């Protein structure tokens, strides 16, 4: 039995470790520069040359060649087999060591060693498969790039067709801003259209000499455009919204005035017809009203006028500033346009490229280890700190990192207080009974609801209803508001019922004979339900609220997928986790501590917040860790409530309100889905899926480590054992 259980644990560990090792291996090797290979291939009409990186080697599906290949294995196979066996044994030993070592540091080291050995064994395994297949019997998947010329990123080359295979010294990889990688040979370097270098080494030296400066100017121009123009747009948008707001005000007063004038007309007509004194008095009153409205209208017109003039002035000012800025940008670009690089592809075509648009370039076959490491680190740096390019398949993922972290933080801030309060009520205040059991079952079931359902709920409730209400008030939701009198009457009713409900609550929980009046509890519950309904009705039928962003309508501000709504949806999704773990933590607080506190004369709340909660804090933190891990990795609901493929601006900034809750955001999980399966260039971007996964796992691990560290601190403080 022990063996069975141990075996089960071992199988689980192996699967998890295998998955992690795979992600670690592929994810971390994505950015490692491969050598460039030039193939000369026979085709029907002569020979063709291809230059590219070999990304995959598979055996040919031809039985005869495969047989031939396996009968004569390559001499390197045995070496790779030994490597594989050695690495696997090392991994097993390291795993065992990790299991038995009593010291934490020993365990960590052994765990790292185990993962490393697993990675090594995966690598040597792939090399073994590579070497088992002879040159004759394989197909190479070569990343040949040059999409702008060939319309394809990859070429399959069959082994038997290869006439010649070499790694030319001056084969160069360029990573331009667009169209994916470019492979070729440098032939000329142009400055102002004049050839300054023609030999590959000279051309490359010239390129390297100018590249850094050119890129610096390019970044400068980009910065000017992104921030300068963005700021100008924001100013102009503000002015436009002010005008629109004034216009709405004016239109409303105008509408009121028209109604008043019509009433006055009918009233005065009637008065004329009957000639009664009463009618005249009414008409006079109405006329006064119309006059007042006309004065208001004049004021509103004046405000609108000012706003319009301000908008025009802003427009002029912004236009001038934009023109100036664009001129600066143009200067930088003109300077950059002087430098051009002429490349020749393997097929012999010449392509002139602006140095400006080349992100990175290196002669792959000349790189030393240090050089390769430099390229590798530079690619990681770009990945972690840059915006995405090329439909997310190139460039960095900074917006996605920031989006994920900010969303998870807001979610934790929302879910922890709510979950802890709910758990406190269930465990400390509610008396056990049918209803409490039902609530517990409901909470546990909530954890099993498919996450997409939460997404649909979030979209329907948060985005459309709450967001729409914030944007445009009840009118936006097509709810006719109550007249003011009705609204105030209902408010009074709410106040009265609320007071009665409050008194009834006190009577049903504090009275000496409370056990004799079970109907009181039911009645109290009913009253509270009525109160809640009235409160909602009051909020959603208010005539006093027209939305905070009505000037921007019909463009929604909060009434669409947004960072806050995504966070709140995920908070709802992870609520059961927090409630359950907090409840468990509360249950482990010994009753003797509560009694001790009561005996000192503490009230229930004092006991809870001074004794029970601090003691249960580690458990609460555990719940938070679990919730964060679950929330950060969730994708399906986010697709509905605010995660998007690409955003220009980060959801956090250094200008108030610092966190822009109404913005859409990028999310690493969604990014994985998008890059791997939605991108036009998904084949080339697939290794990025692993890299992004690795990054997401690392971020979740980091968030968890911080929480675990906090929890350990709390534990040391509150739950050190005495005996």
């Amino acid at each position, binding site marked *: 039995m022990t063996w069975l259980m141990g075996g089960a644990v071992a199988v689980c560990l192996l699967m998890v470790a295998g998955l992690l090792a795979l992600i670690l291996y592929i994810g971390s090797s994505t950015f490692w520069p491969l050598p460039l290979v030039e193939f000369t291939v026979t085709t029907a009409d002569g020979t063709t040359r291809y230059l590219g990186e070999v990304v995959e080697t598979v055996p040919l599906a031809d039985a005869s060649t495969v047989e031939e290949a396996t009968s004569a294995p390559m001499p390197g196979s045995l070496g790779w087999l030994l490597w594989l066996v050695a690495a696997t044994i090392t991994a097993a030993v390291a795993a065992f060591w990790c299991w038995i070592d009593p010291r934490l540091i020993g365990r960590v080291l052994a765990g790292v060693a185990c993962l490393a050995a697993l990675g090594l064994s995966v690598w040597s395994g792939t090399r073994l498969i590579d070497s088992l297949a002879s040159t004759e019997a394989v197909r190479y998947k070569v990343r040949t790039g040059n999409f702008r010329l060939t319309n394809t990123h990859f070429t399959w080359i069959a082994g038997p067709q290869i006439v010649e295979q070499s790694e030319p010294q001056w084969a160069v990889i360029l990573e331009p801003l667009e169209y994916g990688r470019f492979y070729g040979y440098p032939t000329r370097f142009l400055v102002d259209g004049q050839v300054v270098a023609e030999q590959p080494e000279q051309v490359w030296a010239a390129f390297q000499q100018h590249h850094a400066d050119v890129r610096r100017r390019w970044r400068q121009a980009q910065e000017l455009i992104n921030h300068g123009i963005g700021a100008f747009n924001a100013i102009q948008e503000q002015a436009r919204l002010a005008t629109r707001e004034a216009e709405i005000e004016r239109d409303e007063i105008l509408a009121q005035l028209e109604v008043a004038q019509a009433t006055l007309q009918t009233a005065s007509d009637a008065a004329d017809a009957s000639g009664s004194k009463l009618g005249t008095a009414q008409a006079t009153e109405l006329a006064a009203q119309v006059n007042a409205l006309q004065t208001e209208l004049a004021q509103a017109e004046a405000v609108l006028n000012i706003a319009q003039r301000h908008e025009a002035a802003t427009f002029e000012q912004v236009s001038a500033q934009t023109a100036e800025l664009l001129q600066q940008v143009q200067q930088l670009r003109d300077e950059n346009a002087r430098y051009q690089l002429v490349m020749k592809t393997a097929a012999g075509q010449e392509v002139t490229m602006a140095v400006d648009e080349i992100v990175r370039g290196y002669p792959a076959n000349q790189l030393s280890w240090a050089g390769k490491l430099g390229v590798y680190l530079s690619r990681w740096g770009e990945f972690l700190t840059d915006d995405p390019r090329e439909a997310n398949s190139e460039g960095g993922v900074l917006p996605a990192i920031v989006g994920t972290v900010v969303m998870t933080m807001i979610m934790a801030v929302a879910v922890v207080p709510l979950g802890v309060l709910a758990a406190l009520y269930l465990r400390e205040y509610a008396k056990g009974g049918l209803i409490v059991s039902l609530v517990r079952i409901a909470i546990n079931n909530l954890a099993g609801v498919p996450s997409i359902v939460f997404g649909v709920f979030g979209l329907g409730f948060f985005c459309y209803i709450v967001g729409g209400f914030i944007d445009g008030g009840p009118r936006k939701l097509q709810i006719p508001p109550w007249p003011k009198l009705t609204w105030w009457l209902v408010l009074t009713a709410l106040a009265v019922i609320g007071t009665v409900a409050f008194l009834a609550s006190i009577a049903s929980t504090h009275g000496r004979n409370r056990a004799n009046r079970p109907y009181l509890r039911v009645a109290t519950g009913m009253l509270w339900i009525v109160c809640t309904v009235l409160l909602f009705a009051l909020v959603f039928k208010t005539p006093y609220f027209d939305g905070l962003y009505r000037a921007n309508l019909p463009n929604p501000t909060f009434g669409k997928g947004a960072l806050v709504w995504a966070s709140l949806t995920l908070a709802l999704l992870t609520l059961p986790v927090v409630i359950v773990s907090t409840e468990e933590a509360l249950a482990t607080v010994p009753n003797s501590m509560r*009694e001790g506190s009561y005996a000192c004369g503490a009230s229930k709340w004092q006991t809870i917040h001074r004794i029970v909660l601090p003691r249960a804090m580690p458990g609460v933190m555990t719940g938070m860790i679990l919730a964060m891990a679950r929330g950060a990795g969730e994708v399906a609901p986010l697709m509905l409530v605010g995660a998007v493929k690409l955003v220009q601006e980060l959801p956090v900034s250094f200008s108030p309100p610092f966190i822009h809750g109404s913005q859409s955001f990028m999310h690493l999980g969604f990014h994985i889905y998008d890059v791997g399966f939605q991108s036009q260039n998904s084949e080339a971007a697939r290794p990025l899926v692993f890299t992004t996964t690795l990054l997401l796992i690392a971020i979740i691990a980091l968030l968890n480590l911080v929480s675990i560290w906090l929890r350990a601190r709390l534990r040391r403080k509150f739950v050190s054992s005495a005996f």
Partner: protein
Amino acid sequence: MPSLQSLVRANSLMTEAGPMIPEPFPAPASTAAPPKVPGPAPAAKSPAASAAAGGRGANRLQAIARGEKVEPALHRQVFGEKAVLEIDNFQLWYGQKKALHEITMPVPVGKVTALIGPSGCGKTTLLRCVNRMNDLIDSVRIAGDMRLNGDSIYAPGVDVIELRKRMGMVFQKPNPFPMSIFENVVYSLRIDGIRDRNLLNEVCERSLRGAALWDEVKDRLHDSALALSGGQQQRLCIARAIAAEPEVLLLDEPCSALDPIATGKVEDLIQELKGEYSILIVTHNMQQASRISDYTAFMYLGRLMEYGPTAKIFTNPLLPETNDYVTGRFG
């Protein structure tokens, strides 16, 4: 409401003639209303029958087993003292089960009063009723009353929290709070919202000195209280209980979780606290009761059997059952 002493005197329970079995003790008028759930049938025996029943131990125990009412033997000395706490015809039910039967006893001020008796006799229940800890249990119902320095404990409208602040309680198992030693001691001041640093320091030192713990912990007042040894933790709990200057100190088997040395220290401490504080202590250790207490009450199956000066109870008890119990022949 007539006071307990006057009632007792009016019924002339105690005579100077020496030990005798008291007459049936009439319930005070205030607690005459019986609880809804019927308890065991009230005793309908004549004083003579009662006296006859008390004549031999076996009969008295059999009467209890039959559920009949048995009158306690109260030594007159206990009424000679000024009482800090008067327990007045107190009864308690856990659901349908009656756990305390018509208990009436005064607890003298400035003395140590011990409650002894076999397990399950209700002594801890009685103690927990003094500061209304049993309110926390849903199924508990009570009848009768207790008075702390004349103020009713169970009258309607009594603020339980204010009431508990007038008493200190120490539990069977040390239960220091998960905070520093200092914060533990001044907990009851903290919950009153007292922030005056000097006052807190002063109370902390006074209480820790009072609990004979000051010298051991004065250099690590801000370390976790959970790092103390079991005996130190229990003395810390005593310090916490006396920090608010309680009118009565309730000790619920304070030494049962401690080793002999720690027990000795706590017992010495109780001796020192005597006089300054009125102490009601539950113990199942008869030697302990005889060593530290001035008065001893013997309880059996929810009934008060005998209550008097410790020396009398242990050497010359009125009831043969008490004698049997303290000499270890039953219980």
